[in-house]
């Protein structure tokens, strides 16, 4: 068994996959640096140095076999932070190389592919929820700020959505768990990685003057649009799981 250690990036992972083929490794595991705990000092370790041209070549090949949409699925597996993500992506790529003429991602009867499809579904659902449950709060400097804490690392998947939607206001979405965010300043829309966690202590004090009013209006609207005679809290919680409540303005 050979362990390929990579730097945790998507490019790094694809480089590792490339090298699995390059060195004709059969029995391998790919592990990211951050998660690696060496148990067996005699284990054979292969350190992968991320090389974008190798990653690029894997992507090219994949694009021929499973198209852009297939690559997007694999990206979702990567962003899922699932403990098996490397193994699943490697398995899918191996299958795809073996059957270049078929879209192997549709072979749902295969255990790995089915897992991939399940993971993609969960990640997509979380992505969708983040387009829905992000709540911006207007700050004194005019920036609309939102904090999120998604189950998967979906920030890269929602950038375009918000970029298309909010072009005439400055905004920022910040992932509390992973400590990075997206910032749009009316021109660029980029990821940022603060050295230290943002200090959100008493940040309400930095709200724009009008912010509290609109929050109150929204809360009143939320209450008034409910039909008491049809109350169905079970359904409500099913749609808006409790773990999101603390970030929702209407659930103050």
């Amino acid at each position, binding site marked *: 068994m050979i362990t390929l250690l990579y730097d945790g990036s998507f490019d790094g992972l694809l480089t590792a996959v490339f090298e699995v083929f390059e060195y004709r490794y059969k029995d391998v595991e790919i592990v990211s640096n951050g998660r690696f705990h060496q148990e067996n000092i005699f284990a054979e370790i292969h350190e992968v140095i991320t090389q974008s041209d190798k990653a690029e070549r894997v992507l090219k090949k994949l694009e021929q076999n499973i198209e852009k949409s297939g690559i997007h699925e694999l990206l979702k597996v990567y962003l899922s932070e699932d403990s098996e993500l490397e193994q699943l992506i490697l398995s899918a790529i191996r299958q795809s190389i073996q059957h270049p003429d078929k879209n192997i991602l549709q072979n749902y009867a295969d255990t790995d592919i089915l897992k991939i499809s399940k993971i993609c579904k969960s990640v997509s659902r979380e992505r969708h929820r983040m387009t829905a*449950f*992000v709540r911006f709060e207007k700050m004194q400097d005019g920036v609309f700020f939102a904090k999120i804490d998604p189950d998967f690392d979906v920030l890269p998947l929602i950038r375009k959505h918000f970029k298309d939607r909010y*072009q*005439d206001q400055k905004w920022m979405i910040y992932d509390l768990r992973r400590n990075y965010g997206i910032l749009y300043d009316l021109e660029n829309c980029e990821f940022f990685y603060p050295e230290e966690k943002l200090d959100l202590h008493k940040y309400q004090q930095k709200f724009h003057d009008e912010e509290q009013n*609109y929050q109150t209006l929204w809360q009143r609207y939320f209450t008034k*649009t409910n*039909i008491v005679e*049809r109350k169905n809290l*079970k359904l409500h919680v099913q749609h808006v799981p409790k773990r999101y409540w603390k970030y929702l303005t209407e659930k103050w």
Partner: protein
Amino acid sequence: MNFERLKEKLEILADAAKYDVSCSSSGGTRKNKKGALGDSSVSGICHTYTEDGRCVSLLKILLTNHCIYDCAYCVSRSSNDIKRAGFTVEEVVDLTINFYRRNYIEGLFLSSGIFKNADTTMERLVRVAKKLRLEENFNGYIHLKSIPGASDELMQEAALYADRLSINLEIPTESGLKLLAPEKNRQDMLSPMKYIQNGIAQYKDEKKIFRKVPKFAPAGQSTQMIVGATNENDLQIIKVADHFYKNFSLKRVYYSGYVPVLEDKRLPSLTTAVPMLRENRLYQSDWLMRFYGFKAEEILDPNMPYLDLEVDPKLSWALRHLHQFPVNLQTADYQMILRIPGIGVKTAQKIVQARRFQILNMDHLKKLGAAVNRAKYFIDFNAGNAYLRYLTDKNFRNLLVGGSSSKFHNQFSQQLSLF
């Protein structure tokens, strides 16, 4: 802006608008222009859910609840003694924009009581949409509820700025409408709908020739019917829906179980329960017509004019057509696979894809997302299927109802995934 007064108005006018269920943001196609605000995604986004479990995607309010009419089923009716209020155009625009900027909503769903006559009211609604589009550069979703009897000119303008227009039929039958809303007539509802339908068709033709024709109600038209305020049967309701899908090219028909809020001898008493299960069955039937290739006549017929409250309409159809089962998963065509109880559109598609790779068995079916506890009785596999012997059992229906009742009886909302 007087915040306290605005808050009070919002409370009154959201409360008065809440019974309208024809409120979704799907079907939007408006793409953002550079530097502007908003973008409508095709599938729509529910930003939150009310405690009754309904999706909130739009700011749904009345412009005013002053109304000169006296429709028996409506809380805003003139004889009802309630607090009245009215927004200014600016206030509605301001709320919409500020809610949208905070990602609370996909856009606006604006309707109104008729405060002077149809055209004055309609003109005010159009003004809101126009201001949002032209002055605020807003590309989010706008749904205007047209006022019955509004003139063609105003409908034309409305369709230029709104994504969707709707006129609520309210009561499925003409006789029911006469009884409960004597001042309204069906023709006043139909002619603006016809006008918009023709406009949409014409727009599509022109779009083929000139790329830059302005959008015309791009998300189409919808309507709403109140269920259970009068005594029409389900067959009548489904037929009306079918008629409007076919002859008015409606995008959606919404069904709203009557919530008894008013004392009136023409209406069910205040203690009557909201017919939620019936409403849910109607939505399921509607899905069958729109996505599963069922015809209205297949779902119900004159001998059986009410939907089965015990089983969903698809299972009900299957039970009446046992001779068409079992269906072989490996060879049956897609349309027939869609008709197997427990198999939805997505699963049916996956089956058709996956069977090219291998011979499917029960285990695969489960993994592909079918509700196997129901589907298993209706399917033939190449390797055979022991459950098929129940198909001919006299107690088959009881077996199915008993085995799944707890699941069915909790499905009360149209916004659940239905099959």
